[in-house]
């Protein structure tokens, strides 16, 4: 069955803007609510607890209860804080995460703007959100937040480069930066064709959205609450929302770039997109339940000495294949890519271990 809609549906500029913008915002908000519920329940299960189970069936209404509670909290602005930045920072952090959704195809044709520089747009806008988090960290005039804010910029400068290099591999394979073209090219999802790029992109996205192995910005056990220590009430809610909508957008990006976005049999595209997105988030939760937090020097070492050379290598093999073997059969290229990726990751891990021992000595 064909579930696609035409790219200029429903024909009118303003009508299209309003309908799709409302769909996008509703999609992000409902996913955030489901993500919060899922995170608390799944992490509880992993740690053999129960998690919230009182509000509504299976605790589904817990997020709504929290929202109402946080809405009625007093709005405190510390006397030492920079008032203007303190108010503006949550908005600066939140708006760009929503803006990224504008170029993501939720369904065939259901995409607000099909920019021909989509990848560049995503790389540029996602950095602005980090600046919002940095500002919220320094605006509060709190020592813990300051350290969190400095770490945020460290993560940003380190993981931006491997992320975009992994995407450059996709751009080579598709010959376009437009997201609809990238999804169109994925009759075989790119996770099979570029497994190394997927691994790099996944790790970089985890760091960009500050999820656990890389949640140094928040680091509850060392920095109280990191960048949002000073925040309370609705401003805290907006920062919390930013964090989870970043998780939504991150999972959506992985889905769109590597898992074939809305492509799939029988079910409508948006349903496939949602299923894949939740599967990616489930994987992120699994990582959170399993891995301990890295130190900042370890995380930067991973980015600069691990991911960056690997992403260069990924770019090299992908461009080599595109130029010299453009018509390689799938049954050769998929196993070849997977085997090469596994071998290079193992070799590089061994090299990095050696390098660490020699630099410590």
């Amino acid at each position, binding site marked *: 069955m064909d579930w696609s809609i035409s790219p200029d549906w429903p024909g009118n500029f303003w009508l299209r*803007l309003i309908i799709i913008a409302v769909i996008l915002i509703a999609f992000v908000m409902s996913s955030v609510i489901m993500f919060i519920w899922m995170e608390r329940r799944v992490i509880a299960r992993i740690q053999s607890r129960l998690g919230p189970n009182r509000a509504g069936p299976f605790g589904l209404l817990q997020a709504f209860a929290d929202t109402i509670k946080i*809405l*009625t909290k007093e*709005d405190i602005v510390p006397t030492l804080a920079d008032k203007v930045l303190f108010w503006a920072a949550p908005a600066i952090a939140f708006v760009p995460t929503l803006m990224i959704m504008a170029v993501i195809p939720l369904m065939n044709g259901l995409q607000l703007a099909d920019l021909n520089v989509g990848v560049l747009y995503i790389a540029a806008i996602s950095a602005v959100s980090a600046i919002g988090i940095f500002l919220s960290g320094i605006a509060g005039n*709190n020592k*813990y937040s300051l350290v969190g804010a400095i770490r945020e910029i460290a993560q940003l400068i*380190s993981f931006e480069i491997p992320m975009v290099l992994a995407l450059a591999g996709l751009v080579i394979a598709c*010959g376009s930066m437009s997201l609809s073209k990238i999804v169109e090219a994925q009759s075989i999802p790119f996770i099979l064709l570029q497994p190394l790029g997927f691994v790099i992109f996944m790790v970089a996205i985890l760091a960009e959205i500050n999820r656990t192995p890389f949640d140094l910005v928040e680091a509850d056990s060392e920095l109280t609450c990191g960048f949002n220590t000073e925040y309370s009430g609705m401003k805290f809610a907006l920062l919390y*929302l930013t964090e989870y909508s970043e998780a939504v957008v991150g999972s959506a990006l992985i889905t769109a770039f590597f898992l074939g976005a809305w492509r799939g049999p029988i079910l409508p595209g948006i349903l496939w997109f949602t299923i894949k997105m939740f599967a990616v988030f489930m994987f992120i939760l699994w990582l959170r339940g399993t891995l301990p937090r890295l130190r900042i020097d370890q995380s930067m070492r991973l980015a600069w000495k691990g991911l960056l050379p690997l992403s260069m290598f990924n770019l090299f093999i992908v461009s080599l294949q*595109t130029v010299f073997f453009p018509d390689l059969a799938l049954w050769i290229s998929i196993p070849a890519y997977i085997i090469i990726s596994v071998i290079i990751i193992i070799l590089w891990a061994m090299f990095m271990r050696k390098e660490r021992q020699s630099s410590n000595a």
Partner: protein
Amino acid sequence: MQDYGYIALFLLMSIAFAVFMLTLPLFLRKFRIIPHKPSPVKSSTVECGLETTGRSWVQFNSRYYLFALVAVALDMMLVFILPWAINLREMDWRFFIGGAIFIAILLVSYIYAWRKGALQWK
């Protein structure tokens, strides 16, 4: 151009959404739904129970300015690599060699930075 119109208008809508969320407590405070009783202790900066000493806007050794310098150089590389990557499919091996030389030059500087210990957390 129409696509950028969508982006700009969506930006305005997102800003309106964020501003609405931020100013909601002000209205609720007007209707006395949320309390507003500031006190010096409440609005002091959190320091985990201790009294707040000094400000946090101090000169802080962020320890990664060398990383940041390398990041600027490699970010420039990204800007030049993306147009190359788009066109690679339609071009022949000479185009590939050109890009490879460009990346090799940057790789040399990257390896130099590594050997000099710029990528070592001190």
